[in-house]
């Protein structure tokens, strides 16, 4: 009975994640449906490759047996998103995506350090 309830909750969560991903792809990235941009086919290829990498690392976040597995996967996901911002800045010509990627590098570094400190069971003001 308990196992069944757990399975139902995981299924609902997966459906929710799929809906959110589809909303992100179809609504907030309308660049995928403007084929007149320069280098559009190459951008589409890079988008799907990086999306596959993100799905693999999210699988490791969901399944990882220990906490450090999940921290490693979140770190890798951040670095993938940095690469995606750089790829996105070429066909659109909006170079503020590179500002986003620089800020994301620093934020990912600091958050990884804080999580590692939490993993070692130390206090934060040490």
């Amino acid at each position, binding site marked *: 009975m308990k196992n069944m309830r757990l399975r139902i909750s995981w299924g609902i969560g997966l459906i929710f994640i799929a809906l959110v991903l589809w909303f992100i792809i179809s609504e907030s990235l309308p660049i995928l449906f403007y084929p007149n941009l320069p*280098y559009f086919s*190459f951008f589409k*290829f*890079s988008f799907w*490759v*990086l999306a*596959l*990498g*993100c799905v*693999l*690392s999210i*699988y*490791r976040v969901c399944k990882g047996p*220990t*906490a*450090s*597995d999940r*921290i*490693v*996967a979140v*770190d*890798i996901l951040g*670095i*993938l998103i*940095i*690469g995606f911002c*750089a*790829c996105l*800045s*070429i066909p659109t010509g909006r*170079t503020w995506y*590179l*500002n986003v*990627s*620089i800020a994301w*590098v*620093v934020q*990912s*570094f600091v958050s*990884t*350090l804080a999580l*590692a*400190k939490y*993993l*070692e*069971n130390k206090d934060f003001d040490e």
Partner: protein
Amino acid sequence: MIIKIGFGFITVGLIFDLLGCLGLVRLPDVYNRLQAATKCVTLGTCSIMFGTFLVLGFNTAGMRALLCMLLLILTSPVSAHVLARASHKSGVKLWGSSVCDKYAEDKKAQSEDK
């Protein structure tokens, strides 16, 4: 011509990213996963940044891409080292077929000295 070289760099970076994420899923241990994923994904993203610099050229945007590559090279190995050390200290076991564990030997020798 130089734009084509930049797209070649970006393609190599994408292949490295995909192989790193495959290693993140397939390998058996935290330390193996950390090694594969961090090396491959850092090199791949740095290659993407360098390709972006070659495509955009010598202006503020290209210099920003180069700066981002430099920051990534500086910060990513440091965070990987910190994560490996923290997971070893928090007691994550190695894989069963692992051969050598120098850090545990060092800690044992230090505790014997004290």
